[in-house]
């Protein structure tokens, strides 16, 4: 429930519906209480509206610019974070990991004698030399894809937050 004052302020600010506005207008014209309050509030409204802004000293802009000149010039945030830098860092790490992996594989005396893959009873006609290496490569690729997918999933989750 609005008070008379709230109603009249809404009328003065033109913040009411047309129907409500007409209703208040009629009350101001007929009701002495509304009429008196409207005159009072209108006077306050006109006084505030006519108020001039204060002026700072003449040297204000100069003083600000003197301080500003000591600051680092601002740049848009999007240019601050250059995508090329991010890609370069990513490429560096990817190449490093790859180089370490290649180096480790080349220098290791790798044997799978003690390791036995779980036996799968799949009756696939594969050549014996293809099985060992291709299965490992396939698993490695799957793992890489899973990691990429997981990374994307986490990124999406972060961006939706």
């Amino acid at each position, binding site marked *: 429930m609005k008070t008379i*004052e*709230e109603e009249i*302020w809404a009328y003065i600010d033109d913040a009411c519906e047309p129907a409500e506005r007409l209703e208040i207008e009629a009350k101001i014209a007929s009701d002495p209480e509304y009429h008196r309050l409207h005159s*009072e*509030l209108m006077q*306050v409204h006109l*006084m*505030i*509206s*006519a*108020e*001039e*802004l*204060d*002026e*700072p*000293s003449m040297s*204000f*802009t100069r*003083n*600000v*610019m003197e*301080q*500003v*000149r000591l*600051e*680092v*010039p*601002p*740049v*848009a*945030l999007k240019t*601050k974070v250059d995508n090329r830098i991010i890609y370069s860092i990513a490429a560096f790490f990817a190449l490093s990991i790859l180089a370490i992996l290649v180096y480790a594989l080349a220098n290791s005396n790798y044997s799978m004698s003690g390791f036995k893959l779980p036996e799968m009873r799949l009756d696939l006609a594969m050549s014996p030399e293809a099985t060992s290496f291709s299965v490992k490569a396939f698993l490695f690729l799957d793992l890489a894809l899973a990691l990429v997918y997981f990374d994307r999933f986490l990124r999406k989750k972060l961006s939706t937050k």
Partner: protein
Amino acid sequence: MGNMQLKQTDLELIESVLNGQTALYAELVKRHQRFVFTLALRFAKNREDAEEIAQDCFVKAYRALGTFKQGSKFTTWLYTITYTTAMTFLRKKRLQTDSLDNEENTIQLENQISDYNADGIEKTSAHVFLYQAIEQLSPDDATIITLFYKGEQSLEEIAQTLNMEANTIKVKLHRARTRLKEKLQHLLKDEVKELI
């Protein structure tokens, strides 16, 4: 060159500043200094402190200009900085003056009033009474009234500036104007007594 600058919008000026034309920031300062200073005066109550707040605000805005979102309204962003800078100033000032009595403040107020008293014409003008009435309001009330009437800010924009709900601002604006009306009535009543 001057005419070209006048035609530029706030956003265009900001873009130019961000592209290295830092001297154009002066144009933005000139454009908004009166409002920022007035807003600062609602908190500081004396011109020296208000000028310090306003300057600080423009320097802070310059530093953070890169983070300004181009789609939003520059004035709303600038007034938010002004409000937070002024609030910080007020908190510091309160801490400093807690140990002192009100003597200093009384002197300050008297000095300001005597500035107006020196001018016989201004003394009787409505502006002086309004100035005194606004000065007696709390900084928040005075700020809301100034933003609404002089800052060309909608209730939603004021809410954004003061970090409040639009409905809260609506209620606060109503209360602030009621208080202002009461202060004005009180001041004008005293004036009538003086004349008698």
